[in-house]
């Protein structure tokens, strides 16, 4: 088992290094000139040349690569060509907004999905099961950007009960300003007892979080159903049944515990998918997070930002997959046995 973990971790490190090399060469494929983007449209050729020198674009590619890796190791992801601010700082200021949205949406989605999946597995092939499975497939197949618009149209425009976009009403910032501590508006307003702001932040959160939740609902419901049906058919479940333990107890205590672990880990991996989904969702809801920032960067060809986000997401994926694998090993003694 020890060697397996060592192999798994070194593979993860190798992939991260390859991702760094990959992103570096990807930017060299991008046809636009970074120096030109840096100085803007109305610059003279001298200014472009100066920027080129300043950005080190005249150096050989390996010099640029070594410098890139060196900066990365110092936690420097470069400077945005659009805003001329360090990418790391821009991402950090926008991170709380995205995290608030993702935590809310995913928790809601996973819990609802698990409940749906359990109810489905309790009576397979009943009409409730068919409806629940239809919902779970639909959740994964739903075009998020379209669903977001439908929600805006229904709840924001026609019913008029929820705000269309943004993270907080602009007027509130004047009359009931939130004291920023963590950047999580819900938490900050709650701690400072600013109820009006808390309520407003919550109302703004509902629609984007609901859009975001569609995928985790579908994902976890589907997995939960399959896992529960599998566990309920295992020999050890038959044994518990033979011991005369009540069916509800078998279902809620013994089977649920066995099915829950893998489902939560696997759904947590879909975290990265959710993160990418925020690119679309945040831009539609004008949510000031990392997603809308990246979407903007893509449209304005802001290479350092695209590069930084691609790399960070790749690293995050590798790390999450690694953690998920290790948790699965810890949970399931059978894997421990045969992986050596």
């Amino acid at each position: 088992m020890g060697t397996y973990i060592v192999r798994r971790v070194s593979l993860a490190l190798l992939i991260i290094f390859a991702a760094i090399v990959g992103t570096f060469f990807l930017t060299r494929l991008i046809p636009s000139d970074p120096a030109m983007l840096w100085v803007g449209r109305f610059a003279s050729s001298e200014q472009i040349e100066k920027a080129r020198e300043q950005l080190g674009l005249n150096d050989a590619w390996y010099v640029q690569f070594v410098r890139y890796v060196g900066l990365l190791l110092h936690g420097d992801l470069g400077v945005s060509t659009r805003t001329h601010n360090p990418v790391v700082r821009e991402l950090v200021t926008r991170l709380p907004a995205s995290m608030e949205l993702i935590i809310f949406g995913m928790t809601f989605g996973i819990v609802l999905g698990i409940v749906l999946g359990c109810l489905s597995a309790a009576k397979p092939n009943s009409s409730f099961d068919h409806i629940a499975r239809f919902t779970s497939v639909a959740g994964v197949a739903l075009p998020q950007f379209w669903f977001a618009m439908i929600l805006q149209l229904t709840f924001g425009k026609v019913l008029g009960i929820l705000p269309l976009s943004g993270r907080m009403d602009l007027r509130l910032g004047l009359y009931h300003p939130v004291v920023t501590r963590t950047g999580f508006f819900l938490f900050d307003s709650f701690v400072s007892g600013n109820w009006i702001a808390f309520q407003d932040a919550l109302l703004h959160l509902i629609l984007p979080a609901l859009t975001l939740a569609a995928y985790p609902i579908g994902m976890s419901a589907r997995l939960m159903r399959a896992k529960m049906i599998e566990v309920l058919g295992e020999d050890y479940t038959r044994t518990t049944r033979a011991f005369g333990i009540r069916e509800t107890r078998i279902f809620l205590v013994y089977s649920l515990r066995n099915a829950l672990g893998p489902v939560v880990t696997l759904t947590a991996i879909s975290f990265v998918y959710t993160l990418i989904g925020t690119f679309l969702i945040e831009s539609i809801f004008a949510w000031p997070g990392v997603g809308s920032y990246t979407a903007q960067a893509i449209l304005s060809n802001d290479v350092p930002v695209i590069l930084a986000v691609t790399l960070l997401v790749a690293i995050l994926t590798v790390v999450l997959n690694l953690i998920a694998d290790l948790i699965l090993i810890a949970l399931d003694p059978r894997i421990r046995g045969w992986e050596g």
Partner: protein
Amino acid sequence: MINLTRGLRRILRNPLMVVGLAGISTFMIVAVFGDLIQPYPEDSRGAVHIDEVLLPPSSQNLFGTTALGRDLFSLVVAGSRISLLTAAITASMILAIGVCLGLAAGFIGGWIEEVIMRISDLFLSFPSLLLAMAITAALGPNLRNAMIAVAITWWPSYCRLTRGEVLSLKRREFVESARAIGASPLRLMFRHILPNCFAPIFVAMMLDIGLIILTTSSLSFLGLGAQSPTPEWGLLITTGRTQFLTHWWVTTFPGLALFVVVLSFSLVGEGLREVLDPRMVRRGK
């Protein structure tokens, strides 16, 4: 044969599968006979009608008209063919790369297998939409590059799948006996092993094809795929973004078409997987 009829009966007993099959057939028919169905075929080729801008749905314009006065129903119908072609071409690219490399990795083994599998691990570590976005940004935004980008991000899972199948088939008796009577490696690969990999690959493709359509449309929505005046669904939605709050139909109908098609493929894929998964057959009943 008995298996086939039993499988067919299982399929028809699953209502989700029936709904999905109905959706796919409708989509195929609309995509193939689109030219006959479109009431205003010139609109999907870029005609502009200044006097018919943003009309609500009516008997003349079933889905209303767009900001350029185009009949939305014609555009959505024309878009179905684009989606079908996109899906077919992208899927062929994915299969061509993934299955060939998987076959090579599983059959030849050794360092070739190691290299191919590590490369596919690398690709799998990037989320597909993000990688596709980065690649289209690099290659330049148009539908062809979007399809190439999606194919580049998607082949590794088919490579893995094929390799796994090949590894289990390689040692089977019928392959051994073919080898014993002197069949060449190429013949073993393409005549004896590959045909037996088709079922799982087919099921995986059914599950994925909807998501391929969705990913390509998402790229178009971000402005990285199809360009105007192509009546691609994702592009139709993104062009309607500025008007949809006051003119609901401009984004609702193209999105609905996209959703129904993706959903139909997913339902069928999901149903097929259950029919073919022996664990589900035994326990799910």
